[in-house]
């Protein structure tokens, strides 16, 4: 953090407070260079961020027919979505309360995974038994494609060639195996997706970020704590957790969006089925986009997500960053 400020003070690039015409010319050239290059991402951002989001909000008040003619309907889409998302029927495809409930479980899941990743990172950081092997093996979730993991997961749970059923049977737990297979039973389909998320969610880059944050904590802190007779648990609670808290805040704040965006995992594991039992809001949007259904309705959902997500992230961030002061002092 500190060198960041020094860098700023020491040099301000080619632009400096000047008055002579020559220097003014230089500033002009600076500006051409700066704005010329920044214009590329700014224009792309205006199109692929501002325009699409504004158009999304506008279209949320319209309905379209199959000829792509839009008709203003006021708040009708919002009412429809509210009606759909509070009913548990499947008359409206996957637009039902199950989809919302599934999505809401994503954030506790992600928090739980962050907790596990911190534990694992601390385990390796303390050079506990087998830490070198674990560090390498547990990086695999970030290395291998999610589609490959999903394929492996489905192979492991396959009724014919899957190892899981064989293991369960040999442990005398054969009754646990659902008769319609792990992916064919609506009641457990979402749990299967959650199991997949946990299986591939421990380790990987999240763990690597936490463990590198731990390695950046000054050694002396631990040394003096050990001289004072602090146990490893106390070191975790009073040194490690407060010092990696900012990282935790940033990482969980960004994963809060996962409530609305998590789509790849259910798409790959269950395809959102059977009968939409394991759909999420994110997957709903992706599938509706591919199918080209009622754009107005999807845009309305997108608008709700934009507003709700923005507020949620703001509130959550304020909440967790407040918490850090209490821990630190």
């Amino acid at each position: 953090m500190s060198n960041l400020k020094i860098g700023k003070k020491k040099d301000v690039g080619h632009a400096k407070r000047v008055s002579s015409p020559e220097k003014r010319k230089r500033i002009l050239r600076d500006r051409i260079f700066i704005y010329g290059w920044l214009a590329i991402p700014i224009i792309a951002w205006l199109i692929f961020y501002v325009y699409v989001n504004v158009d999304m909000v506008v279209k949320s008040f319209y309905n379209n027919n199959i000829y792509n003619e839009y008709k203003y309907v006021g708040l009708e889409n919002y009412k429809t979505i509210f009606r759909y998302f509070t009913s548990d029927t499947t008359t409206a495809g996957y637009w039902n309360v199950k989809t919302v409930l599934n999505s809401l479980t994503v954030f506790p899941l992600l928090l739980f995974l962050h907790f596990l990743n911190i534990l694992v990172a601390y385990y390796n950081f303390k050079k506990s038994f087998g830490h070198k092997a674990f560090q390498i093996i547990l990086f695999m979730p970030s290395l291998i494609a999610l589609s490959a993991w999903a394929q492996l997961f489905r192979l492991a749970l396959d009724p014919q060639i899957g190892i899981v059923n064989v293991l369960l049977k040999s442990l005398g737990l054969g009754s646990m195996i659902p008769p319609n297979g792990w992916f064919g039973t609506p009641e457990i389909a979402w749990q299967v997706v959650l199991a997949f998320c946990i299986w591939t969610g421990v380790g990987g880059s999240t763990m690597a970020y936490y463990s590198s944050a731990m390695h950046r904590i000054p050694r002396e802190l631990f040394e003096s704590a050990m001289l004072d007779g602090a146990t490893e648990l106390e070191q975790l609670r009073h040194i490690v957790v407060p010092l990696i808290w900012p990282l935790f805040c940033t990482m969980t704040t960004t994963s809060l969006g996962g409530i609305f965006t998590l789509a790849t995992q259910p798409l790959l594991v269950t395809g959102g089925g059977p009968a939409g039992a394991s759909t999420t809001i994110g997957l709903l949007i992706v599938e509706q986009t591919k199918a080209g259904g009622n754009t107005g309705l999807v845009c309305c959902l997108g608008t709700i997500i934009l507003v709700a997500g923005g507020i949620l992230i703001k509130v959550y961030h304020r909440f967790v960053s407040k918490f850090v002061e209490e821990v630190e002092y």
Partner: protein
Amino acid sequence: MRKTKNAISMFLLKGVTFLMILLLSISFVYILGWILVQSFNTPLGFMKKPFSFVNLSDLSFDSYIKAFTLNAQRTSFLEMLLNSLILVGIDVFMGALFLPPLCGYILARYEFPGKNLMISIIIITATIPTIGATPITYSLITKMGLLDSFLAIFVMSLNCFGFGLVIMMNYFKGLHGELMEAAALDGAGRMQTYIRVMFPQAKGLLGVNVILQFIGTWNDYMRPYLYLPSHPTLALGMDLVRATVVQQGQDYPTLFAYMIFMVGVVTILYIIFNKQISTNLYTSALK
């Protein structure tokens, strides 16, 4: 008393953690080892005994030959590989080498009106979920006539506002500015200063970003799924391959050979650059 209680709870915590990661590691190693071993099996040998080791008499490389020459719903393996490489090429250049470092450098090293506004816009863009705008983006791409074309990916990657840009900006802020000033005094142009002096200084981080971008794009599923439906990449093609070789002839070993290739490429890359990744990224990115 408190001490012993703490020690016991730490022991329990560590024990539970150990058990958990042991089970996880075993499951990873087992399942990957299983497909590796079985990829050398014959389809018949596999279906007879899916869990035992391959009979030496059955050992064959047929499945690899089949995987590399297969046609999954009119798309050949080589086509999928080529699609993956094109996508990786676009992303590595656009996402790791061209715009994020250049714009990060400008934002870090120059003062200009609107700079702070731009930085806060970048951070907001990176955090707030905008998945809801997918249908609009999709129809926009369709209207531009870019659906199913790699140009769509290129055009969208021009919008480099995100965490990658923030990381590059912080990195360039942390560098010392003497070299830059010296270059300016020598009469080097602004772009020259950047390419000759600043860009090389960020080589380590840029190299790591290239590797990570390679891995990320190689594994990417959602973007090809949405925007390149008839140009399947290797990651996207896995379902096609499964449908072709497994559902038609129970030929699991070919699917395994395909997966081993996919996983193997990034694993080798990671093993080679493991050290650079862990030292470079995590010291510079976590500001």
